[in-house]
């Protein structure tokens, strides 16, 4: 799996130079100067990220995972397991938690860290039983009259033989329908990859928010390039054409807000990223909580029925 942020190389080289300078000569004028240059370079690179570079950031192995955020943002997260039909899919985690002293339901796609964990979490690609667990927890949230918060981070639903045998399409379709019909406030935050229908199954919410360096796409740039250009090498070009960055989705009136990330990405300062998510969740949840139910439902209807009418 490609996991190098190639556009970071100039910055890493400068950092190395500064480190050596400081090591050799202690704090010097030169290192201070270089640090200033580094700051400038950082801003220059990060203000002009190409869509493909954002894709690389969104997929970066070191990026905080759902459970990292959950542990910072929520209190007393109690994971609940299983779909009661077939099994328990570790690529989707869910459970009860406190957010600002209120009970909420959290459902999230969980990618792994390192080889073993990634195999265990299937790189965040859910099986049908993952979506069916999510459905069960969505219904529980509705019954308990607590808000639903989802964190989205998946390359897509797992494309396997068993997935098809167990009804991947049905599982996704029903998750979308069910989420859209919930009589509770729902908020989704895309924290990394929003890969196709497998992501939409957890993102059909009243408010959809995206971290600044996350993506949401109908198909992976590689998949798109393979089909339309007949060559995966055009993935970089496809990433631009697909309009998959948070800014694009805001312009297309699909999402409701972009959550700032620390400079150089969430992995540089996970606590700061988590605080930003938390603040945004607070803000949107307060707005939604204060709406009468029929207004909430009406707004959701308007939001979804107007998509694509630009």
């Amino acid at each position, binding site marked *: 799996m490609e996991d190098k942020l190639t556009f970071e190389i100039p910055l890493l080289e400068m950092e190395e130079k500064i480190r050596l300078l400081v090591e050799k000569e202690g704090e010097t004028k030169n290192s201070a100067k270089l640090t200033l240059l580094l700051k400038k370079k950082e801003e220059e690179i990060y203000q002009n990220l190409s869509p493909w570079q954002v894709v690389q950031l969104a997929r970066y192995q070191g990026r905080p995972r759902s459970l990292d955020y959950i542990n910072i943002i929520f209190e007393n997260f109690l994971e609940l397991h299983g779909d009661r039909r077939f099994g328990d899919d570790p690529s989707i985690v869910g459970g009860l938690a406190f957010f600002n002293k209120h009970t909420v339901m959290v459902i999230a796609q969980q990618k792994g860290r390192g080889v073993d964990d990634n195999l265990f979490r299937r790189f965040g690609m859910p099986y049908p039983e993952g979506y069916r667990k999510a459905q069960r927890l969505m219904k529980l949230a509705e019954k308990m009259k607590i808000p639903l918060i989802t964190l989205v981070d998946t390359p897509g*639903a*797992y*494309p*396997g*033989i068993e*997935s*098809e*045998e*167990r*009804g*991947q*399409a*049905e599982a*996704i*379709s*029903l998750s*979308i*329908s069910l989420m*859209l*019909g919930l009589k509770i406030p729902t908020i989704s935050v895309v924290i990394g990859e929003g890969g*196709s*229908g497998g992501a*939409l*199954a957890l993102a*059909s919410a009243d408010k959809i928010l995206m971290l600044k360096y996350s993506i*949401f*796409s*109908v*198909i992976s740039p590689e*998949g*798109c390039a393979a*089909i*339309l*250009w007949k060559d995966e090498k*055009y993935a970089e070009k*496809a990433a631009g*054409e*697909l*309009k*998959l960055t948070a800014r*694009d*989705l805001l312009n*297309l009136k*699909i999402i409701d807000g972009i959550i700032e990330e620390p400079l150089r990405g969430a992995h540089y300062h996970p606590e700061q990223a988590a605080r930003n998510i938390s603040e945004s969740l607070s803000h949107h949840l307060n707005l939604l909580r204060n709406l009468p139910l029929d207004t909430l439902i009406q707004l*959701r*209807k308007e939001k*979804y*029925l107007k*998509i*694509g*009418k*630009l």
Partner: protein
Amino acid sequence: MKLLNWLNWLRKPKVKTGIGNYTSIVPDNIWIKCESCQTLIYYHDLRENLKVCTHCNYHHRLTAPELLLQICDSGTFKEEDADLTSRDILKFKDTQSYAVKIKEAKKKTGFSEAVITGLGQIGSYRVGLAVMDFNFLGGSMGSVVGEKLVRIIYKTMKENLPLIVICASGGARMQEGVLSLFQMAKINYALNDFSSKSLLYISVLTNPTTGGVTASFAYAADIILAEEGALIGFAGPRVIEQTTKLKLPEGFQRANFLLNRGMIDRVVNRKLLKATLTNILEFNHGR
């Protein structure tokens, strides 16, 4: 036969099989090869047999008008929103611009989008109908396919009728990016409303039905039928093979495979499709 004579011969005896404004311009008196068993069949015979191979039972792909002609009572189908057409909102360009692709698809098929919607009668029961056409950009779902479906869903709901959607699609249309993806949610939202009125929704999955269409309205139906032999799945077989490095089992993702795993209600031979739909509509009427 000289080329000119052959061209004249090709041009003359055309059978107009049409519905509404759409006509098929395939000449009737030629021999064509079955796409499956390669047997030569007189086109007239194939057409009479609803494009099901007389030798091997292979269901050849139908255009949306051909399908409507087969299932609707003669002269009852009235199209809605025929003029709704896609725009190149993202200015998408691969080896060709999306704007050009739309134009060419329109020219090739004679209609304006990958789905034809309207109200009609089947076995003298009035229904709302949406029929997808794979010939129009692979039956892909963009914003207009979503909008046409949503409109026919609410129109059918207003008239208190059952809804039938015939699917044939490679999935969401890449050239409209996330706008296509979110049509899945848009359509499923409308179907939630439809369902809340206790109205019946039947989907018919034809060859092929994959991707975002399968993972939204195709599988949101109350009763799901599939044409014999149809390929139906979320991920395409090639993607699955590449990801898993496994050899796919015989008949994988075909209609019977899904029936055996409890994913659809019935596998239907095309020649029995109208009768099966009529049968279900009778039950719907008798409640």
